[in-house]
């Protein structure tokens, strides 16, 4: 990685070559116009330098055709660049359904990474080459940014929201991981390394590293330790099959129907009073401040398993994890259905 003055980051993901192609096209276009302007200025300075103090050039006549030319042509070039960039951006923001999810929790000045099979890492990410990976990221405090220059990708990690970033590593090696959004004192220390390994090395690494509980098992343990099992078997709504279903709730006194997605489950853990399931009193205590970000993700994995939903949330469609039907009025009687519009 460190051979003399590097002028180009390694191309290590499926997006890298495409971003580099766009980069070379842009450099060519901007280089041409910069040299054109420099050349014109230099020639005009020399050819039309002031030879006598009382020299007086004649009146300039404006040419509407020329004005139009140098507005429309740059606009045309700009549109080409815009479309090329927009298509590339669209691809980078629509993960394929078969991508393997890796949970990333950004905390002030460290990255905590959780694989689906239970492996947990700090500031390091071991991934096999050639397999699409989706990072489901959230932050516990301020805004961070998971940036891997070698993959030509970055995505802000916003507190209070799940953001996603996907890529297919194509070249084996170790690459820098930077935090690109200023987050305080240790912003510059919040770096890490992405280890892209061949399939065999990856299996070998899996075997070697101490495998802790899978998120599902860890979630089940939490479910019992924190006493959720006590209510959620009898007095509180049973959670079997709840993930992905339509739940009738009252939000601040108004009836509504909400789709139980990740945001709903998470909010019900942290802020139970926001949406109260119809027919049940608002007595669930809030777990804000007691559960960390990883523990919520483990509980989420467990609750999903209760309803047999695939552990990997399906990322079909452009809008991230679970898209919703449009705003058609609800089929169910007078109760206005909120597909997911009203989740906090």
């Amino acid at each position, binding site marked *: 990685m460190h051979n003399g003055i590097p002028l180009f980051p390694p191309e290590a993901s499926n997006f890298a070559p495409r971003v580099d192609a766009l980069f070379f096209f842009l450099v060519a276009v901007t280089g041409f116009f910069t040299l054109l302007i420099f050349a014109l200025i230099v020639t005009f300075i020399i050819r039309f330098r002031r030879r006598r103090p009382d020299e007086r050039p004649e009146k300039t006549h404006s040419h509407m055709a020329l004005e139009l030319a140098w507005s429309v042509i740059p606009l045309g070039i700009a549109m080409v660049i815009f479309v090329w960039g927009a298509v590339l951006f669209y691809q980078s923001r629509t993960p394929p359904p078969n991508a393997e999810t890796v949970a990333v929790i950004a905390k002030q000045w460290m990255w905590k990474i959780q694989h689906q099979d239970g492996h947990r890492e700090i500031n390091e990410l071991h991934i096999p080459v050639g397999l699409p990976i989706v990072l489901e990221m959230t932050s516990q405090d301020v805004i961070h940014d998971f940036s891997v220059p070698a993959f030509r990708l970055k995505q802000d990690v916003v507190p209070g929201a799940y953001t996603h970033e996907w890529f297919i590593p194509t070249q084996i090696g170790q690459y820098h991981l930077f935090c690109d959004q200023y987050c305080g004192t240790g912003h510059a220390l919040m770096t890490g390394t992405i280890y892209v390994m061949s399939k065999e090395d990856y299996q070998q690494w899996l075997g070697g590293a101490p495998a802790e509980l899978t998120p599902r098992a860890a979630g089940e343990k939490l479910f019992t330790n924190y006493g959720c099992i006590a209510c959620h078997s009898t007095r509180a709504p049973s959670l079997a099959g709840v993930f992905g279903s339509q739940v009738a709730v009252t939000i601040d006194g108004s009836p*509504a129907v909400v789709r139980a997605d990740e945001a709903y489950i998470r909010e019900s853990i942290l802020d139970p009073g*926001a949406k109260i399931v119809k027919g049940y009193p608002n007595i669930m205590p809030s777990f804000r401040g007691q559960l960390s970000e990883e523990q919520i993700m483990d509980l989420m994995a467990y609750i999903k398993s209760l309803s047999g939903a695939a552990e990997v949330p399906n990322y079909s469609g452009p809008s991230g994890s679970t898209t919703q039907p449009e705003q058609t009025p609800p089929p169910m009687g007078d109760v206005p259905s909120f597909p997911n519009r009203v989740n906090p």
Partner: protein
Amino acid sequence: MPDHPEHLGLVAHQFDDIEQQREAATLGMWAFLATEVLFFGGLIVAYAVYRHEYFLSWRKGSEELDKFTFLNISAGAWNTLVLLTSSLTVVLSVHAAKHGKNALLLRMLLATMVLGAAFLGIKFLEYSNDYREHLIPGPNFSPEVSNHVQLFFVMYFAMTGLHALHMVIGLGLFTWLAVQTLRRKITPDRHQAVETIGLYWHFVDLVWIFLFPLLYLVR
């Protein structure tokens, strides 16, 4: 006009005539009101985004506001009535200033100040009622409602607080105007101050005309 305004020293040295000075003053005030529109606009945008996200909590918050009523009409409606009347008294005071009716001008200025004070009084009653109902955002915000209702009240206090601040500034300006009238400084030739401050007051009323439905009538 018998003696030209320029000789009476009414026109500042950088202007050529009284007409240019009036046009500059009006445009200057309107440009300032444009900045005020966007100053409140920042809050309106935040309100719009959060109403779009948490509509039902917004509706709950608005119902909480409507509980404070007098003769079965919410305090917001009374305040709108008070402010619309104060706009009328301001128009009458500008009219009086232009035609040199000092007595009417003074009465109208005082009426406007009384109505302004009435508005602030109703606001004070509302705020104290909110305090009793634990609706002030902070640690002891009422637990039965969700966090987003607390967000609504943060918006409510930001918008109405900023508006009340502008009311207090307006009252200060009108006190200055009343003092000028008493000292015979306002004449048909020198009434630009009344008109400019009148524009400011109408704008503050305009903001309330939008704040009232946005905050109180969320259904």
